[in-house]
């Protein structure tokens, strides 16, 4: 069995695991691409998964691979979003992408995107080594608007859109990717200038906006 197919199946099991127990017969019903009992046996033999009582669970090596692939998939989605690729091809492209990018490249992309924590569907992106390192030392190219200090300016790169109401409020004030903002103060509340308007807001709201620092 080729590596790509193994990765596919492991990723699929990981996604299912997040939703609850994974049954073997449930997996075998999958059509696209089909999962066979032989494939699962082979993976069990390789020490990637464990099958017990009709259930499948990921073992450490299998989980590591699955997490890496899922991370690459969601990073790819985020990247395509920033690149403004057409929606129809994103999912398909992300599925190819996830198997191709080497670890180093995925870390570079993650850093470029400011170590995002969720994909644009609002699903969590598993953190990589680079994210942990970034938290300690490195300042990424894209940062949260809340991380700018008073007096600093930034250009919005993307916004996370999990909470519709918050998003609608922000867009009605003109917050969109590509727009320049300046942080005037961070306490007692944040004051952000957008165009010729000053807007006061809570830190939580700013956490949804990611910018590239200017100047």
């Amino acid at each position, binding site marked *: 069995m080729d590596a790509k197919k193994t990765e596919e199946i492991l990723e699929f099991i990981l996604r299912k695991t997040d939703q609850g127990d994974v049954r073997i017969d449930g997996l075998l019903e999958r059509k696209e691409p089909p999962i066979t009992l032989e494939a699962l046996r082979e993976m069990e033999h390789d020490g990637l998964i464990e099958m017990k009582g009709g259930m499948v669970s990921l073992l450490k090596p299998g989980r590591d691979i699955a997490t890496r692939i899922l991370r690459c998939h969601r990073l790819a989605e985020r990247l395509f979003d920033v690149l403004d690729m057409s929606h129809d091809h994103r999912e398909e492209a992300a599925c190819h992408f996830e198997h191709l990018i080497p670890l180093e490249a995925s870390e570079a992309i993650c850093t470029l995107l400011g170590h995002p924590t969720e994909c644009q569907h609002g699903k969590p992106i598993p953190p990589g080594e680079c994210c942990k390192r970034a938290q300690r030392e490195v300042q990424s190219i894209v940062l949260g608007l809340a991380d700018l200090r008073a007096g600093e300016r930034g250009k919005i790169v993307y916004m996370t859109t999990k909470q*519709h109401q918050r998003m609608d409020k922000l867009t009605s*004030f*003109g917050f*969109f990717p590509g727009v320049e903002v300046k942080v005037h103060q961070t306490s007692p509340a944040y004051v952000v200038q*957008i*165009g010729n308007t000053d807007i006061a807001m809570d830190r939580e709201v700013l956490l949804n906006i990611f910018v590239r620092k200017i100047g």
Partner: protein
Amino acid sequence: MNMKIEINLKEKKKVALVGTPNVGKSVIFGVLTGTYVTVSNYPGTTVEVEQGVSRFDRHQDVVIDCPGVNSLVPQSEDERVTRDILFTERPDVVVHVIDAKNIRRNLVITLQLIEMGFPLTLALNMHDEAVQAGVHIDGRKLQGALGVAATATVAVEREGMPLLMQNIRAPLTSRLRIDYGERIEAAIAKIDALLPELPVSKRFAAVALLMDDRTVRPLLLKAGAGEAALHRIDGIVSAAQSHFGKPLSYVISQRKQSVSDGIVAAAVTDRCVQRSPARERIGRMTTSRVWGLPILFAVLAVMYLFVGVIGAGWCVDFLQNTVFGGWVMPWCTRFVLACVPWPFAQDMLVGTYAGAPADHVGYGLISMGVVYAVAIVLPIVTFFFLFFGLLEDSGYLPRLAVMSNKVFKKVGLHGKAVLPMVLGLGCGTMAVMTTRILDTRRERILATLLLALGVPCSAQLGVILAMLGAISGWALLFVLGVVFLQIVIVGYVGARILPGKTSDFVLEIPPMRVPAMYNIAIKTLSRVKWFLTEAVPLFLIATFVLFVIDRIGVLARIQGLLRPAVVHVLGLPERATEAFLIGFFRRDYGAAGLYALQRAGELSHQQVVVSMTVMTLFVPCLAMLLVMIKEHGWKRALTIVGFVFPFAIFVGGVMNFMLRYLGLHF
């Protein structure tokens, strides 16, 4: 004859003013109709929708001033009111008032109005500020791109108004149509086919539905859409959504913004001039960590001096003692006793009658109602409204919201709640109406509860300042401290009991402006007028009811019922019972009753402290109660009152015993 009337009716148009908060909509409304409404820097001051009749030509159009909106896909009650007006009132012309220096953001609303299909004209207001900020708008290019007329105006100085009026008479319906892309357009077409005839374009409704705007549903049902059709539309919306990673509302907004950006790029040059640096620096200082609080306290101190010392002290003294005590009342009493023959009527008017016993205490309409209203409450309210006007027009109020955000967060609200709260220091009734600017029902209820519980209105506050000021600053701080503590405790607990979450704090901070005295004067006048027509009749009714129940002996009985609570729990003299009773009609009126008791030397310092605290926490006045019922319904309003009443007595009782037990003196 008949023909003529028909033509006139036909020519009578409905004109709706729409725009973001703080763009000077109300000033334009004032110029168009001649009736000035409050103009302010704070989002939401014109919550009540104002209507007027135009005076700029002979047509007598109806002009509607809609509440400020940041979007016509509503997120707050205000925005919903505006959208609903546009939907149901079917204006013949919409005037979109734009903040010229922020045209990029404002144009998105213009595009929404165009989408609605209204004949439209634009007012590029505060054009002077835009010029100062280096924003130049090419009117011809803008008109070409939008397909509607745009007039540069400076409404406060009446600049550009004649041209705007001309354009209102000849509005254009734009043909501009935003292309949302194949998938969304297909969905719009499908939804379109399922919608009934609407007062606005179906396209607008379809886009709103795609943006997951739930508030548009009731309007559609009213217009005759069936549940089945709406259900099918839901299917179309979620099918369309599945093609996009981002919520459709975001995709659609982004599309509108990029169209607007295109127009701005073609028609507007922004030289990014530094805004007036001194003004800007002052503006920033008012919310900075270092200067914010000192400035806040300075503002409060000035407010105390202005409203408390000058208004409640000097003016009340002068009016009550010199004007009424020395001149009006003796003259009135003599006149009534001489000209009105019946003792009953004499008593009703001036609280005394020929041959009355020396200790008779009357509830005369003039001696009590008019004196309290005009001599005590009116000056205080006037001074408060003057000061509040200054706060509004200078742009300080939203900054106050920034400074107080953290405190309000503790009680389940956020900085935006500062407007109803500060306004509550003026008039609780007005304040409860303004709670509508808050985004969720939960916040509106919390704010109303706190207003009903602990925020004293200006008249009451004035009396409190005067009474406690006469004792010592400590007494004043003590009472205010206790009341503040109760607000925080009740708010904290309330925020945890009421379901739901606090909405996000996102608030526009307008530039600091030097207020125009003329506007403040007019605004204060219209508020005082509101007070006189709204509150003074209630004063008189309250006095009259008191007079009647006193005469038929019911007052004595109610006082008998309340006496144990007032005398034993609160440790106050019997006469205070009646002040609390009146307090229900107007809180300030009740406080004024206590003031009279103190001046007559019937209250000890301790008693003043206790009675003031209870009066502040006590029931809302009648007018406020009515507004609470109107805003929140019987059940919620009565629940709030049912809590506040015993709670006030409880706190007062605890205070009374503590003061006595500890032997605290002021």
